[in-house]
């Protein structure tokens, strides 16, 4: 399949739209919000040229965007949307309906801070706010991953009968042009196949009820089924990823250990900061330091076992969060603490919070985190990067 691959230079938003062009979904319902706009604007241009069969529904809010997606997906159509920040927060009620109804909607997220104060720049507060909503959540490090994850995410959602969010960092990835390699149209078409749900509203001869009342005698069973479906996502991810590797040559796991073999000091991070952190790891490794990076790709479901195993060989660990969870530990840090328990790892894990509302994170900041680990300068409390 090496043939027909193309090198392109696109923004994250453009790469997502390019993947959507190749997927050719039936319906997109979306509402504009910065920094999601490059995704839906690029796709609208593609649709205006009739390069896809998609019907775009220009709804009047994100709540209606997700509500329309739920109607469309339940009706039997392959359905996508995209949002950011306040938009995802406004959808909060209905994203639970999407997952509870087991509808494989694909949602691209250009991650952005939440008000107040209002701020349009990157952090992960919006997606962390949706972490218990029953959606698959996949983080992307760069434009290449945005493209790949869009294709993988769609197939993973449909295979798992669960909705999926593919997350890129707002502006940093959504608006930055990077080189990427795309897959030929035919390859993507074959990879995603045709969407054939088992039950759908437009199957007039086999009427079904979507969204019934579930009282105490049934509700809990539905929820446990949903959690079991979520646990199956790990295996599904492996299957989809294997197939994707054959198509693209790119090999993805639910997490990426970067130079973690033999690493005594590991930093854990999700999103675009992983790219910067890799440079820092390279530099420190050149200087003989035993450091590594653990990049989180699949955040929901969270691969505790795999992460616990990787971290079990390290001495010191630092988790870098681009979000807060007011009144308790930062979200990723909490997960990592749980992963360590999973593998009976008893070493000390430090918590760092950085980049809220788009505050810059520099290589020197990450280098300092590694220096803290190496010198054993651990702290029980959270440390804020970029706050004096």
């Amino acid at each position, binding site marked *: 399949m090496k043939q027909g691959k193309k090198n392109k230079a696109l923004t994250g938003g453009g790469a997502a739209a390019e993947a959507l062009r190749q997927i050719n979904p*039936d*319906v997109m*319902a979306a509402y504009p919000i910065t920094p999601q706009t490059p995704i839906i604007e690029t796709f609208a241009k593609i649709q205006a040229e009739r390069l896809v*069969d*998609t*019907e775009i*529904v*220009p*709804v*009047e*809010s994100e*709540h*209606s*965007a997700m*509500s*329309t*997606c*739920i*109607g*469309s*997906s*339940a*009706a*039997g*159509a392959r*359905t996508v949307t995209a949002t950011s920040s306040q938009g995802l927060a406004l959808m909060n*009620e*209905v994203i639970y*309906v999407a997952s509870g109804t087991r509808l494989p909607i694909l949602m691209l997220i250009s991650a952005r801070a939440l008000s107040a104060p209002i701020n349009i720049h990157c952090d992960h507060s919006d997606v962390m706010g949706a972490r218990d909503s029953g959606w698959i959540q996949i983080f992307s490090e760069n434009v290449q991953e945005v493209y790949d994850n869009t294709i993988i995410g769609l197939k993973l959602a449909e295979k798992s009968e669960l909705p999926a969010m593919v997350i890129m960092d707002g502006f940093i990835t959504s608006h930055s042009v990077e080189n990427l390699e795309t897959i030929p149209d035919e390859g993507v078409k074959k990879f995603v196949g045709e969407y054939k749900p088992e039950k759908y*509203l*437009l*199957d*007039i001869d086999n*009427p*079904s*009820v*979507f*969204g*019934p*009342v*579930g*009282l105490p005698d*049934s509700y809990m069973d539905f929820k446990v089924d949903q959690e079991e479906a979520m646990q199956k996502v790990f295996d599904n991810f492996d299957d989809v990823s294997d197939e994707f590797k054959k198509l693209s040559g790119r090999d993805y796991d639910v997490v990426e250990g970067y130079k973690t073999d033999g690493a005594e000091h590991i930093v854990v991070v999700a999103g675009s900061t992983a790219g910067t952190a890799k440079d820092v790891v390279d530099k420190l490794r050149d200087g003989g330091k035993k450091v590594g990076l653990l990049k989180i790709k699949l955040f929901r479901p969270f691969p505790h076992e795999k992460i616990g195993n990787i971290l079990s060989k390290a001495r010191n660990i630092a988790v870098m969060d681009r979000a807060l969870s007011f009144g308790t530990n930062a979200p990723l840090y909490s997960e990592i603490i749980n992963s360590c328990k999973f593998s009976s790892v008893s070493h000390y894990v430090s918590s760092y919070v950085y980049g809220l509302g788009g505050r810059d994170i520099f290589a020197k900041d990450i280098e300092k985190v590694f220096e803290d680990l190496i010198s054993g300068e651990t702290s029980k409390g959270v440390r804020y990067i970029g706050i004096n």
Partner: protein
Amino acid sequence: MNKKLTQKFAPGHSSCAGCGIPAIARTVLNATDDPVVVINGTGCMEVTSTLYPYTSWKVPYIHNTFENAGATAAGVETAYRVLKKKGKVKKNIKFVAFAGDGGTYDIGLQSLSGALERGHDFLYVCYDNQGYMNTGGQRSSASPYGASTETTPASSKDIGNELYRKDIMQIVAGHHIKYLAQANVAHIEDLKMKAKKALNTPGPTFLLVLQPCTNLWKYPTSQYVNIGKLATETNFWPLYEIENGNYVINYVNKKPKPIEDFLKAQKRFKHLLTDKNKEEVKKIQNILDEKWAKLKKLASVK
């Protein structure tokens, strides 16, 4: 029960004795021979018809949340257009959304407005029982002036609901849809005629159907048709259509009954019928008279 009557909405649902909702569902859905998909906002109709593992719906049905029947219908209808074009769906299918007044006048207004404005081909039916009856009878913006509700209780010092009903028909008409009508579950033939017209009109259509609530309007369960009839006979609830912008009144009272006849039949207005509140009743009558005159003018009725 009559087999034909129940072919789309089965008996055995759990709505209250004397509730008009099943009659509305059956009348509207039986007004077309095409297959129908139902979209339902949260409310009395939904909770009494889909108690898992049972359902009253013999047609495909989706309930999403309280405020998004319009947007959900938009999604279903859009999916239909795409899949029809692709040849994956062969039949002509109609789409009917049902929601109560809370889900229409209040929390669902934006979603309804968006769906109407974008021109989706569906019928939206609001069954209007003038309050949040599924949660026990709180005031909505469809509750009439002077009604005692759970959130606007009347007392010796309080008239009850002090606000006037929102004119949802005018709001919907402002979206320039081709057909909308006000109907009443007590006038089933009129409702059937309107549902037929609406379902045969391309694009979005809207029916506002009065649905007297035995529990919270507070009258005997045997009386829902009579109460509904009184609503129209007093001009509290005129029957009319707006077709391509033209108003047609379907029932012109030569001698409208006084509003007291409607008020005194329901305990929610009991407090109004005291000497102290005589002026209030007069005020209600005057407002009705003005509204009726305005409607007649719009419909060019002398």
